[in-house]
């Protein structure tokens, strides 16, 4: 395929696939394969075990080709570093650059995970101190840093729930989940062999203890709850719910996705949680990386501690070391010790802010979200009038007559230079628009965003086509997702090579 013409579009350069650049035989970096002697591959690998296609299908480009290619691609992204990224429930706060610097220090970056513990005391100490912070913030005594992401933490927590009940003779088979929950909650429960029962909230968006009671029974292993919930509302019946869950012999799982609303405000352990997963990439500011890596440590109550994944850190006279000596453990949930690079960044963030700084994080996150709520509620109806914390959820129902909907509003926001809010989630709010500004945005930025939303609502009424055909100012226009799913093209293929 020929390269598209090199003309600027909105200040950006077009760029083909990396496979469409370069020339046969070109290479960016090589190494001398014979510098230490040793036999050639053909001399030690039998023909049936040897690759014979010369790695066809991998790029043949120079270093400058690579640098230009990926630099251009990067510029097609909006990111938290370039603009407000008000993706509700994702907590797209500023990711401090200093934390990128510390994780690249060779003392952490070049550390092999199987080195003797005596050689890794700095890493172990950091992980132990991080666990201390998480203990303090959650009010729960047991910590595992192993899970790689929030959903992985959910899986870990529910495996522990299952082990706890199995230990008492019956693993039980149902998990209760509010209808507003993230999709990962039911998916994680199913992965642990549980069936899921969904529960509705009341007219104010809050879960009633009577609803929970009506669903509890001897077959219920756990209830999963996100607090504040995905509408940003604090589940104020949480203590009564926890008590009802406990009386039924079930465990309470708190989804920590929204911990950014709770620092210094409420501890899940005090709410009665038995297990909680953190999302370090949300609450403690490790970069989201275009979809990861994250880190999903779990915190648990005393009764779940014996089931934590192994290995676990223990301290003895010679310092910290890894121990497998926990007979009731659920075992490993991933290789080695977790996404340690993300743990280092989160620790840097926690150390920088300290207790006062963390308390301020939640206070300013709540202030920012409530400011947006107050400034937009007259043009976009709120899903619920109930007081909210770190995010606010609107609906598009007043726009029905215009023919422009939530999706169109989101696309038009891109033209104004903002990433879009989370849309059509939670599922219980028709046409949901979920905005989480985070604490790191200034009033000035929020005012610009508010003005943009108000302008778009006005456009929807006056010139609805402008909104419905948006975005207009982006590098590519609206993309045909149906076509992508109907005839999936999931990879580039060499023009002449056999498929596969």
């Amino acid at each position: 395929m020929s390269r598209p013409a090199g003309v600027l579009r909105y200040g950006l350069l077009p760029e083909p696939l990396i496979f469409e650049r370069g020339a046969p035989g070109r290479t960016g970096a090589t190494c001398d394969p014979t510098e230490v002697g040793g036999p050639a591959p053909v001399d030690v690998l039998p023909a049936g075990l040897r690759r014979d296609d010369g790695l066809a299908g991998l790029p043949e480009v120079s270093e400058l080709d690579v640098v230009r290619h990926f630099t251009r691609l990067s510029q097609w992204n909006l990111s938290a570093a370039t603009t407000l990224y008000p993706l509700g429930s994702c907590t797209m706060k500023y990711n401090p650059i200093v934390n990128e610097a510390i994780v690249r220090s060779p003392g952490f970056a070049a550390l092999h995970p199987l080195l003797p513990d005596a050689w890794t005391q700095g890493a172990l100490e950091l992980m132990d101190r991080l666990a201390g912070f998480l203990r303090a913030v959650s009010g729960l005594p047991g910590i595992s840093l192993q899970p790689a992401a929030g959903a992985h933490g959910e899986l870990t927590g529910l495996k522990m729930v299952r082990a706890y009940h199995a230990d008492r003779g019956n693993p039980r088979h149902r998990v209760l989940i509010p209808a507003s929950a993230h999709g990962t909650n039911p998916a994680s429960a199913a992965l642990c062999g549980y069936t899921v029962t969904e529960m509705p909230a009341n007219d104010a968006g809050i879960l009633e203890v009577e609803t929970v009671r009506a669903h509890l029974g001897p077959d219920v292993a756990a209830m999963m709850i996100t607090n504040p919930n995905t509408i940003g509302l604090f589940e104020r019946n949480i203590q009564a719910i926890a008590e009802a869950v406990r009386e039924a012999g079930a465990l309470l799982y708190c989804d920590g996705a929204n911990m950014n609303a709770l620092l210094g405000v409420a501890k899940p352990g005090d709410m009665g949680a038995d297990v909680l997963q953190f999302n370090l990439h949300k609450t403690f500011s490790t970069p989201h990386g275009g979809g990861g890596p994250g880190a999903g440590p779990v915190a648990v109550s005393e009764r779940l501690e014996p089931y934590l994944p192994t290995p676990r850190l223990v301290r003895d006279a010679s310092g910290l070391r890894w121990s497998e000596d926990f007979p009731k453990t659920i075992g490993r949930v991933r290789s080695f010790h977790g996404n340690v690079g993300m743990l280092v960044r989160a620790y840097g963030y926690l150390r920088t802010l300290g207790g006062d700084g963390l308390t301020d994080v939640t206070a300013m996150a709540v202030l920012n979200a409530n400011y947006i709520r107050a400034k937009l509620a007259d043009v976009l109806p709120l899903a619920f009038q109930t007081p909210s914390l770190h995010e606010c959820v609107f609906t598009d129902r007043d726009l029905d007559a215009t023919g422009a909907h939530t999706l169109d509003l989101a696309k038009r926001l891109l033209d104004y230079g903002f990433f879009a809010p989370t849309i059509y989630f939670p599922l219980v709010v028709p046409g949901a628009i979920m905005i989480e500004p985070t604490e790191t945005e200034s009033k000035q930025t929020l005012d610009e965003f508010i003005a943009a939303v108000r302008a778009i609502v006005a456009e929807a009424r006056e010139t609805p086509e402008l909104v419905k055909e948006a975005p207009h100012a982006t590098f590519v226009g609206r993309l045909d997702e149906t076509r992508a799913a109907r005839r999936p093209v999931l990879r580039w293929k060499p023009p002449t090579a056999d498929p596969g």
Partner: protein
Amino acid sequence: MRYTPHTSAEIAAMLRAIGAESVDALLAHVPEALRARASLAALPGGMDERAMRAELAALAARNRADGLAFLGAGAYPHFIPAAVEQIAGRAEFATAYTPYQPEVSQGTLQATFEFQSAIAALTGMEVANAGMYDGATAAAEAVLMTQRLRPGRPLILVARALHPHYRQVIATYLAGIKDVELVEVPYGPDGATPLPTAEQLRRASCLVLGYPNVFGVVEDLTRAAEVVHGEDCLLVSATAEALALALLRTPGAAGVDVAIAEGQSLGLPLGYGGPGLGLFASRERFVRSLPGRLVGETVDVHGRRGYVLTLATREQHIRRERATSNICTNQGLCAVQVVVYLSLLGRHGLASVAERNLRGAHALAERLRGVGTLRFSGPYFNELVLSLPDARRRWQHALGQGIVAGLPLGDWYPELEDTLLLCATELHDAAAMDRLAAALGADAAASAARAGDRA
């Protein structure tokens, strides 16, 4: 406060707009009983950037990352060209999130499409997804996928020579799944895995083989695929050292159904074991059973080529408890870093690095000839198992000289107590190999002398 930009005048103005007296009033609906206990005042205070860096530097200094280690065993030290981390670390990649708005996320989307294409080429498979957490969780997800494809088959056959972390994670993931039994398949004297019986294969949804396996030995996937497919069972290959795929017959060419790997070797630092990257590749006909995200090609309203997340009806945010996996956040930036590495080295560079590894490990084996013997006779890539009397004491002796002589395999395999699992990559030069041979050999000479004294 650091990172919160609000001035007191702005706070006051915002509160006026909200109609609240104070920030505290915005939190008043949270039950007082909870708020009263939630203070974080007992935590240490914050610190400025210089002080924080000093503390982290002090911690880093307590790690001995610069010692001489011949450790692989699931995490591999390799050279990473400066351009790789610089490019992948660009804030536009690093501080974006899942590309839910494709019009302003084409950078992440195209790079991920290129990643999928490169992994498909590297593994010789037809499709690859956008990545999993790591090799071990990818292996577990592969096993679950074969259960969806071959429902009702009660066995999962896993080679004992598969990396123990992978086996343990598979076991953790399977706990609580009804009517499925994990069966370990022993290894043979050459370190490779003899194939299970037809009777076992008939009752199994899959056989999982390491490729190379934990001993560094290259299994014969082609033969395995023939036999496994003969019983309508599926073959999963699990590669902890993805660089090996540059020299070995591809899982795709061998007939594997699901090829998973740990991608750390391809441009990601060791980082004490994470973040790495799970690679997950399979056959086109299984695409709707794949776990994880997929990026697909399409066109925009102007007919220009573009990329979107696709086939999302497999995923948790749409399908909830009926999703193929619970995975949401994956290892996106690691996938970008890996495709930058694979592009920079390309066909020829990657082959040269892989060849350097194979030659180096064999050169190391040559140097250690007088110290011990190869425990297994099967072909290997950059890792080998050395049998030597008194292995653990000699390992300790080398450690005293600042050398980690690989992994005493007795930690993982009690029956291999007197062996060391050694790895040599392009970072191990001739001088390093000589130091290892001297450290292990000097001690060997000494202990031989002592044995002579006793006799």
